[in-house]
């Protein structure tokens, strides 16, 4: 999914799920969400959407809507290409990742 996007990889020892993050460089909830993943040592890929070209932003927006039926908000986390969460809510991300106690 979104293979054409210039994702950067954050290495981590937890690799049980394929985790993608759509973020903005300017958004504090994005920063907190990615900090959460790093603190859990979760491997993930992320892209800063505000750095993309307008053409790529449009393509991403359309693909996201086609797949999930909603607009991508920031941050968005996509897990195993099927589950997603809009905005960083620790409990919701934890549940989607299967990390709930």
């Amino acid at each position: 999914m979104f293979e054409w996007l210039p994702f950067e990889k954050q290495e981590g020892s937890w690799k049980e799920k394929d985790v993608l993050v759509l973020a903005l460089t300017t958004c504090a909830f994005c920063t907190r969400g990615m900090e959460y993943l790093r603190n859990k040592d979760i491997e993930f890929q992320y892209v800063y959407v505000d750095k993309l070209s307008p053409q790529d932003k449009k393509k991403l927006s359309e693909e996201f809507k086609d797949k999930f039926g909603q607009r991508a908000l920031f941050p968005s986390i996509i897990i195993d290409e099927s589950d997603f969460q809009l905005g960083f809510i620790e409990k919701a991300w934890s549940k989607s990742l299967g990390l709930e106690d």
Partner: protein
Amino acid sequence: MNPQEKTLDDIIDFIHRAAHQYNWAVIQDRQFLNDLAEGLLTNYRRFGFFQCPCRDSYGDREYDRDIMCPCTYSFEDIEEYGQCYCGLFLSEKFAASGEFPVPIPERRPEEKFPY
């Protein structure tokens, strides 16, 4: 002022003046505040105005007037949720509660987005 000359202190001053004008509180968490102030500074340097740091849009002053910080939607959001979309501005009541802001529903209409 040349947008490139704005400093982080200028942005934090702007945030506090805006909050004072509308009787809002500013998020107390220093890191979260700094992250949002840095985001506003980035957008000011990019676009020449305070585009909301939590949304992606045109970067055009006319099209994005509604999301120029403090955004048009912050008034209703603070009324309903006690916080703006970014969690930067809070109602006095919310601030006193000690709760941390959370993501809230996007109030900007779909047709306002470029993509």
